[in-house]
């Protein structure tokens, strides 16, 4: 079994972004007087940055365990006092029915960015991004599982797998990941 965590620098940078976003949205909200439209827009953006901050905090605590049988993600990192919805999510390799690998870039030429692996077994889904240590090893396992389970991979997923040097599974099928 191997255990993986998200890169601390990346988590801290995202937390800083969330705080910056909150300051930049809540600040003008306090300054604005009676403009309901502006308040609604800024309020929605503030909620978005709040959600992003909370998710980043969870990402910082997340532990991903990979075994011969499957993969589990514990967003509270094994801490006690579970809330509903925060139970560890486990997907067995043999049950995988959906594999998608998306690339997100902030540059128009798509030269830099991060990847997001999404796995699903029909009931549960898991999303992991490339700031997770050992991400490529997990993608290799997911691609193997996709091939073994005859899961169709989208064109985008195949291109992204090729970019990581991983041979794709079943060709030409499914929608964009």
């Amino acid at each position, binding site marked *: 079994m191997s255990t993986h965590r998200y890169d601390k620098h990346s988590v801290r940078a*995202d937390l800083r*972004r969330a705080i910056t*976003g909150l300051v930049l949205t809540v600040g003008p909200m306090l300054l604005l007087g009676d403009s309901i439209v502006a308040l609604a827009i800024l309020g929605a953006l503030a909620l978005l940055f709040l959600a992003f901050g909370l998710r980043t905090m969870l990402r910082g605590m997340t532990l991903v365990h990979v075994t011969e049988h499957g993969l589990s993600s514990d967003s509270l990192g094994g801490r006690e006092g579970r809330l509903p919805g925060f139970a560890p999510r486990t997907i067995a390799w043999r049950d995988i029915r959906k594999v998608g690998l998306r*690339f997100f870039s902030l540059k*128009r030429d798509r*030269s830099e*960015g991060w990847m997001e692996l999404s796995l699903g077994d029909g009931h549960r889904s898991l999303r992991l991004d490339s700031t997770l240590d050992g991400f490529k090893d997990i993608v290799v396992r997911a691609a193997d599982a996709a091939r073994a389970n005859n899961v169709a991979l989208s064109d985008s997923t195949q*291109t*992204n797998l090729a970019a990581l040097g991983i041979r794709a599974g079943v060709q030409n099928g499914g929608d964009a990941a």
Partner: protein
Amino acid sequence: MLRYVAHRLLVMVPTLLAISFIVFVIIQLPPGDYLESYVAELQARGEGVDFDKVAFLRQQYGLDQPFMVQYAKWVFGLLQGDLGYSFEFNLPVNAVVGDRLWLTALVSFATIIFTWIVAFPIGVYSATHQYSAADHSLTFIGFLGLATPNFLLALVLLYLANVWFGTSIGGLMDERFIGQPWTLEKVGSILAHLWIPVIVIGTSGTAGMIRRLRANLLDELQKQYVVTGRAKGLPPFKLLVKYPLRMSLNPFIADIGSLLPEIISGAAIVSVVLSLPTTGPMLLDALRSQDMYLAGSFLMFMALLTVIGVLISDLLLAVLDPRIRLEGSAVK
């Protein structure tokens, strides 16, 4: 996706700050300021000038302060929803602009929707029925649309409406609603008037988009994977929608960011011809008279629309085509 949206939104902040600085520099570029233009105008008319009053106004409007101080005050005001003061109208810019910003946004969005609704089926039909009689006819109409200046089309429509129906099709609402509070009747009047400027402003864009979609789709339809799909017996409609059409949409989506400012800038002369209460004519006047805060507010509004357009196009591209560029790619 949430992470991507948050990253992308934060990139907008420095972008807008940089644009605001450039806008402020540009509106300050002409020599002198509004008061100097005003004094020159009075002297040209042979009227007396009270220089004490001019000095007082210069101090009151902050025109005697250093550039960076003026800029900082303007940006801080923008953050509070204060667009500054219009020298020409002697009113806050918010009061002068009134509904113009929203009406401009409405005309622009309606034009984009019209452009897509018309261009999309025609472009697809032209590409899938290449060199047919219908393709030649639509291509001819498309070239006509491209070649006809919008303002000329507006003039022709004004003339025809006057000759045939004895009425004017100018304006964006009935005269009785101008300057009145928003009511359902006012909204109905705007919607009833909206189609003419939308058609006039959207015609050339629609024609251009038909040509581009046709060309993109023709490129995709000739690729190997389409031939393979056909050979494997995929139904033609499914094959078209699922692969080549999807790929030919990328340039469209990438263009959303530049579409909005193009429409707003292109609509300025049409707005003058059709007497539309949008930002175009007022921006031209404000630039001519160096009414800097009024002009700056309009330019910032256009910049905001552009940045929002680019954000929308980036988000759509991330959904539709989440692929890495294979050469020189770097994954964090």
